[in-house]
């Protein structure tokens, strides 16, 4: 019998919603050439159906209480203790909603975005495969299944980052992303070794049940190694360097994988393993700290970017820092809430950016934009609402979720984290509005690109605009309002009540009585946001700033401090510390040790055998008298031996 969080039994529904995207992937991969455009519709349809099924399974997923919560579907068993199954409980349900729901919108959007690409069908095969992999990750009821999903989403992201694989930069980015994610997988593998060695089971239920009994050291080790995986997947420092490069992929990919879903897998992992973190204060401190640091670093780096997608990438990194921090310190509802809201407004941001890039013939540098508010008003409103939401302007979704996280840090007794987050909030406001102002205000600065695009209209045949606009429009609603609907009302908001059976009441876990109230927190955050907004306005939006925007921007990019242009030297360090030494070692072994030492030893043996042969043959002079002499010499030795041996007793 397989332990699990869920009630035992079978639940075909979850099986179906899990496998449908895989089916789509296989069909699109195998029959892509025949399907052509149909593949896009098919893929989005199947993902959509899984979303419907996920909604349909709501009640079953949230039934039950405490130990046995949600619906469970056993799959297979390798060995005793190695049982696999699917589990649908509130936590995985939330993720399933985002994966399939937002996933559906983005896949649908892609039909337009990828229109006319030479590998159209392959793209949708990969997208469907990603949805399947991500579902595997969140639906597994055990650590190995989780790891399988973990690896497969990494693969999907690898394929999609390197989708345009004639571009060397894309290929390199894909490889970097994969290898760093393998570092994460390896960390999780080690966690699994620890778990199996101590609990003799890979099943969440069994492991969490045994968690309190584990020694603090083991528990801390498990949490840390698990978090290595989380950090790699969720771009936490120092394993974040792949995320900005990942923007080489098509924009819908960035929206779905590198904003809404995959990169939040780390959040899911920590939330899923809440029982472990609850029992290891050290782990909470570590993860909370790294989360906050990532949030800050991401925000700082975001201020120094000009590529619209890279800005969004760093903002993603920073926002995930918030989430990780939240779930890390124990404010699980807050962290998940921020994930939930972020999924909407960040997807919206990327898709909005996609609209712009699509229209400007792949122009991604905001310095070459400007004045788009008049040219593309829809995109402007899309971006504006999303920016307001991400900055946590009161009333927008981001406001509720972010405040929950930040206040959670204080509730669980991490004042420094709390302070950092508040500062970060300000910086976030600055670079997001910077993006908005530079791209949309003032005069258009990209005539060249524009002309180029106009010159050859066949360059990128435009799909019917609605395919791309509709999903974005749909996203606006939740990214604006979902917070107000679900997360308003603190302790007894629908959100809190939804997760109560899983995590217990927040107050019960809050360990410190916060010195300042939630209201004060809100005020502080709001003030810093205003400051950030003000600076951005002063630098990019004022009349004077608009006047000589081109010159100002050039000056700014020239005067950018080296620390920022080199992205705080993270890549530089990794290159120097790991990549180069490994290559030099390989060269040493392969060019020196192998051929000259180990192989040389054997070649020497052969040489000496030959030498011995020539020595032996050198006695064969052919002179019979010499032979006779040798014979007699040998005989003499014999006779001497026998003469002596005769004496010996």
């Amino acid at each position: 019998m397989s332990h699990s969080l869920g009630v035992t039994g079978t639940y075909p529904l979850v099986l179906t919603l899990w496998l449908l995207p895989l089916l789509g992937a296989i069909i699109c991969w195998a029959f892509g050439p025949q399907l052509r455009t149909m593949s896009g519709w098919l893929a989005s349809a199947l993902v959509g159906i899984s979303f419907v099924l996920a909604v349909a399974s709501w009640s079953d997923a949230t039934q039950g209480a405490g130990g046995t919560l949600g619906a469970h579907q056993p799959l297979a068993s390798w060995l005793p203790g190695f049982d696999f199954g699917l589990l649908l409980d509130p936590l995985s349900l939330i993720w399933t909603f985002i994966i399939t729901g937002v996933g559906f919108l983005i896949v649908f959007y892609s039909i337009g975005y990828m229109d006319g690409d030479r590998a159209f069908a392959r793209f949708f095969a990969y997208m469907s495969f990603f949805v399947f992999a991500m579902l595997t990750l969140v639906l597994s009821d055990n650590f190995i299944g989780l790891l399988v999903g973990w690896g497969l989403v990494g693969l999907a992201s690898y394929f999609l980052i390197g989708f345009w694989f004639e571009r060397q930069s894309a290929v390199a980015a894909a490889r970097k992303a994969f290898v760093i994610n393998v570092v994460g997988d390896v960390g999780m593998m080690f966690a699994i070794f620890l778990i199996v060695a101590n609990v003799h089971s890979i099943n969440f239920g069994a492991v969490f049940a045994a968690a309190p009994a584990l020694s603090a050291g083991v528990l801390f080790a498990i949490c840390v190694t698990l978090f290595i995986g989380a950090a790699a997947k969720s771009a936490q420092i120092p394993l974040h360097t792949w995320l900005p490069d990942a923007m080489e992929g098509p924009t819908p990919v960035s929206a779905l994988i590198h904003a809404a879903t995959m990169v939040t897998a780390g959040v899911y992992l920590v939330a899923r393993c809440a029982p472990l973190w609850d029992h290891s204060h050290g782990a909470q401190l570590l993860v909370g700290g790294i989360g906050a640091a990532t949030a800050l670093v991401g925000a700082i780096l975001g201020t120094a970017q000009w590529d619209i997608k890279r800005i969004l990438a760093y903002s993603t990194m920073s926002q995930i820092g918030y989430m990780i921090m939240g779930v890390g310190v124990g404010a699980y509802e807050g962290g998940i809430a921020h994930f939930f809201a972020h999924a909407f407004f960040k997807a919206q941001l990327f898709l909005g950016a996609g609209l712009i890039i699509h229209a400007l013939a792949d122009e991604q540098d905001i310095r070459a934009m400007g004045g788009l508010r008049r040219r593309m008003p829809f995109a402007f409103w899309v971006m504006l609402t999303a920016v307001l939401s991400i900055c946590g302007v009161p009333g927008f979704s981001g406001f509720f979720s972010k405040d929950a996280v930040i206040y959670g840090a204080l509730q669980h007794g991490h004042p420094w984290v709390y302070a950092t987050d508040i500062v970060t909030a300000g910086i976030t406001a600055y670079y997001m509005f910077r993006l908005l102002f530079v791209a949309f205000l003032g005069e258009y600065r990209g005539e060249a690109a524009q002309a180029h695009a106009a010159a050859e209209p066949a360059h990128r045949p435009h799909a019917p605009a609605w395919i791309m606009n509709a999903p974005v429009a749909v996203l606006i609603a939740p990214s604006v309002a979902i917070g107000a609907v679900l997360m308003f009302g603190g302790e007894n908001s629908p959100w809190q009540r939804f997760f109560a059976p899983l995590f217990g009441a927040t107050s019960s876990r809050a360990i410190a009585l916060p010195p300042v109230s939630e209201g004060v927190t809100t005020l502080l955050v709001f003030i810093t946001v205003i400051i950030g907004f003000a600076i951005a306005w002063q630098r990019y939006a004022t009349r004077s700033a608009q006047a000589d925007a081109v010159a100002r921007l050039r000056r700014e990019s020239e005067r950018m401090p080296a620390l920022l242009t080199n992205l705080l030297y993270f890549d530089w360090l990794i290159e120097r510390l790991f990549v180069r030494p490994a290559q030099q070692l390989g060269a040493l072994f392969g060019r020196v040790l192998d051929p000259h030492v180990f192989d040389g030893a054997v070649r020497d043996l052969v040489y000496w055998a030959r030498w011995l042969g020539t020595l032996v043959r050198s006695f064969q002079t052919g002179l019979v008298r010499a032979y006779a002499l040798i014979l007699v010499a040998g005989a003499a030795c014999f006779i001497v031996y026998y003469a002596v041996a005769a004496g010996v007793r």
Partner: protein
Amino acid sequence: MVVPIGDYVALAAVIFFIGVFGVIVRRNPLIMLMSIELMLNAGNLLLVAFARLWLQNAGQIFAFIVITVAAAEAAIGLAIIVTTFRPERFVDVDDVRSLHG
């Protein structure tokens, strides 16, 4: 007077050694062959001496057989030497060394 057996052994040994020496140092195959005969005869001497010592005629029989065989050997040996050196005017074993290595 009776010659002690030790002397016979010593004498035989000396003859044998002369034979060995001859084979090694002399380059004329005929003389080498003779030296070999010398070695064989050393053996014969021992056999006869011991036969006398033990009053065992097996020794004598052995000696006779050896003599016969030695004769045959000499015959074949001479034949071979003749065929080998028929072309040359001087006979020197050191000239035959086409086989080596």
